[in-house]
C-alpha cells in the first residue's frame, strides 16, 4: 500500500522486484526520513545546546522538537522523561547499569520472561551476578503467550524488577503488559518494558501500560539506525546516577568533582546523534500521517493472510499464535527437512528477504526445542503480493529439496 514511499523498493535485486520481509530486523526508510536527515546535514548542521549562532539554534530546536514528539508518541508525563540513546540495547544497558546498580541487592529477584531478546537478558545476567541477585522467568504457554497464572508465584516481595518485552521478536506475541505491571507494582517492583518490536506497530501509552521504563529502537519503526529512546518515570530518572559522563551531562566541573545536569541532559553525555534524532522525528510524523487505524488493518490483513497460507504448507510449523489476534506480523517457522538457513538462501535467490537464525533469542529457541528458525515480518510497504511470492518461494525450496 505504501510501497512508493520507500525509495529502496525501487531497487531490483538479482534483476527482480524485492519482497522485503525482514522489517523486524530493521524497517526500510520512507522518503520523509531520508529527506529530513539530508536536510539537517545540508541546511542546519551544527552542534546543539552550545551555540549562539543561528545554525546551532536551528539544530537545537529540531532536536528538542523530537523530544516533544516522542513524549506525545508514548504519552509520557513530561518531555524530561525522554532520553535519547544510541538504540534500545543501549537504553536497556543504561537501566541495568544505573537503576540496577543502585537498587539491586543480594537475594533480590529479577523477573524476566522466556521470550526475551538477548538485549533484555544479558544486562540483567551481569547485574544479577555482580549483586548476587537471582533471575527468574515467566514461562510461555503452548499457545506461545506468557503464563500469567504463574505471576502469583513468581512476583514476590523479593522481586525488584520485572523486565519484559512488549512484543516478542520471535513469536510475534503481544504481552499483557498492563496486567503484569499491576502484579509487579503490588509487590513494589518496577517494570522495564522492551518496546523495540512494538514501536511503529501499535499505539504506546506508557502510563496505561504501567511501564516505569520503556525503550524504543528507532530503526525498527521506520527511523534511522543509531537512535533509541529511553523513557523513565521522572522520579526514578532523577534518583539514578549518570551512565556515561563527559560533555553536556554536567552542571559544573572542577578539577576534583562534577555535578550533573538536570533531566534529560544527565543521561545524554557527549554530542548527540542529532541527524538520527531528527530522522526519528520524521518517522513519528510518517506514522502519524498514516494513522494507527490504517496501520493495524494493513498489518492484520497481511498477518492473517500469511498465517493461513503458511499453515497449508506440509511440514511447516509456526512458532507463535496461529491467529492474527494479539500478535503482530512477525512469524517464525521451521520447514521439515529444509534447514532455515538454506531456505533463506533459496528465497534470496528469488529476491525474497527473510531472516534466519535464533533472532538474538537463543534461550527461547532452546525452550522451543530448535536451534534456529526462519522469520518473516511485515511492514507498511508489504502487500499480499509479497506473501504470495514467499509461499511460491517456499514451495520452490521444497522442490529443490525433493519434498
Amino acid at each position, binding site marked *: 500500500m505504501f510501497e512508493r514511499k520507500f525509495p529502496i523498493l525501487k531497487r531490483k535485486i538479482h534483476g527482480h522486484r524485492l519482497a522485503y520481509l525482514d522489517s523486524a530486523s530493521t524497517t526500510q526508510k520512507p522518503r520523509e526520513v531520508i529527506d529530513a536527515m539530508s536536510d539537517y546535514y545540508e541546511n542546519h548542521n551544527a552542534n546543539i545546546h552550545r551555540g549562539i549562532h543561528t545554525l546551532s539554534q536551528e539544530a537545537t530546536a529540531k532536536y528538542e522538537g523530537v523530544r516533544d514528539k516522542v513524549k506525545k508518541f508514548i504519552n509520557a508525563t513530561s518531555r524530561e522523561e525522554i532520553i535519547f540513546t544510541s538504540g534500545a540495547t543501549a537504553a536497556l544497558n543504561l537501566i541495568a547499569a544505573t537503576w540496577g546498580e543502585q537498587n539491586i541487592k543480594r537475594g533480590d529477584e529479577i523477573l524476566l520472561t522466556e521470550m526475551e531478546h538477548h538485549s533484555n537478558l544479558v544486562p540483567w545476567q551481569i547485574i544479577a551476578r555482580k549483586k548476587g541477585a537471582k533471575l527468574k522467568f515467566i514461562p510461555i504457554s503452548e499457545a506461545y503467550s506468557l503464563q500469567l497464572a504463574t505471576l502469583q508465584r513468581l512476583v514476590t516481595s523479593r522481586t525488584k524488577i520485572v523486565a519484559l518485552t512488549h512484543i516478542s521478536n520471535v513469536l510475534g506475541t503481544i504481552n499483557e503488559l498492563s496486567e503484569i505491571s499491576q502484579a509487579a507494582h503490588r509487590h513494589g517492583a518496577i517494570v522495564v518494558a522492551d518496546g523495540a518490536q512494538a514501536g511503529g506497530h501499535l499505539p504506546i501509552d506508557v502510563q496505561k501500560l504501567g511501564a516505569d521504563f520503556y525503550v524504543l529502537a528507532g530503526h525498527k519503526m521506520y527511523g534511522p539506525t543509531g537512535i533509541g529512546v529511553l523513557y523513565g518515570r521522572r522520579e526514578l530518572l532523577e534518583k539514578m546516577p549518570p551512565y556515561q559522563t563527559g560533555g553536556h551531562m554536567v552542571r559544573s566541573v572542577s578539577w576534583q568533582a562534577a555535578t550533573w545536569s538536570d533531566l534529560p541532559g544527565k543521561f545524554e553525555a557527549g554530542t548527540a546523534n542529532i541527524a538520527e534524532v531528527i530522522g526519528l522525528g520524521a518517522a513519528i510524523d510518517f506514522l502519524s500521517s498514516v494513522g494507527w487505524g490504517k496501520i493495524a488493518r494493513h498489518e492484520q490483513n497481511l498477518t492473517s493472510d500469511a498465517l493461513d497460507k503458511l499453515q497449508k504448507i506440509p511440514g511447516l510449523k509456526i512458532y507463535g499464535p496461529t491467529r492474527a489476534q494479539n500478535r503482530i506480523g512477525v512469524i517464525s517457522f521451521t520447514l521439515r527437512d*529444509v*534447514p*532455515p*538457513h*538454506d531456505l533463506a*538462501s*533459496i528465497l534470496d*535467490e*528469488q529476491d525474497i528477504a527473510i531472516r*534466519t*537464525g*535464533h533472532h538474538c533469542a*537463543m534461550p527461547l*529457541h532452546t525452550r522451543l526445542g530448535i*536451534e*534456529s528458525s526462519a522469520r518473516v515480518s511485515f511492514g507498511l510497504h508489504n502487500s499480499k503480493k509479497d506473501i504470495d511470492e514467499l509461499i*511460491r518461494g517456499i514451495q*520452490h525450496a521444497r*522442490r*529443490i*529439496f*525433493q519434498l
Partner: protein
Amino acid sequence: MPDESSNYNPIVLAHYRHPRNFGILENASHKRNDLNPLCGDEITIYLQTAGPRIEKMTYEARGCALSIAAASVLSEFVRNKKFPEIKNLRSADMAKLLEIPQTSAARESCLTLALQSLNKLIS
C-alpha cells in the same frame, strides 16, 4: 520457476541427507567442538592420526545443508592426507568439492565451518 538452485545440486543434497563418516570416533586422538554464533551451526570433529597424517575424520554436526554437506565431503577428502595438504584448503576448494559456484559471503561460513575447525585441530 525451474526447480534448481546454484547451491543445492544433487551432490550437496546427497551429502546432506546421508553425511559420510558421521558420528563419534572411538579412540580419537584429536577432538574439537566449534560453533558459528551467527547461525547456531555446531560441529564436533574427531580425528585419528598417524604422525602428521589423518587416518580418519568423523564429526557430529547440526546446521544447514551446506555446512553438513561440506563437513561430509571434507571428511572423505582428508582421509590419508598429510596436515600441510589440508592447511592450504580454502572455501573455493570446498565449493569445488561440492561442485557449486563460489558462494556468497553470507554462506562462506557454512562452507568453511568444518574446514576451519579441522585446521584449528591440526595446527
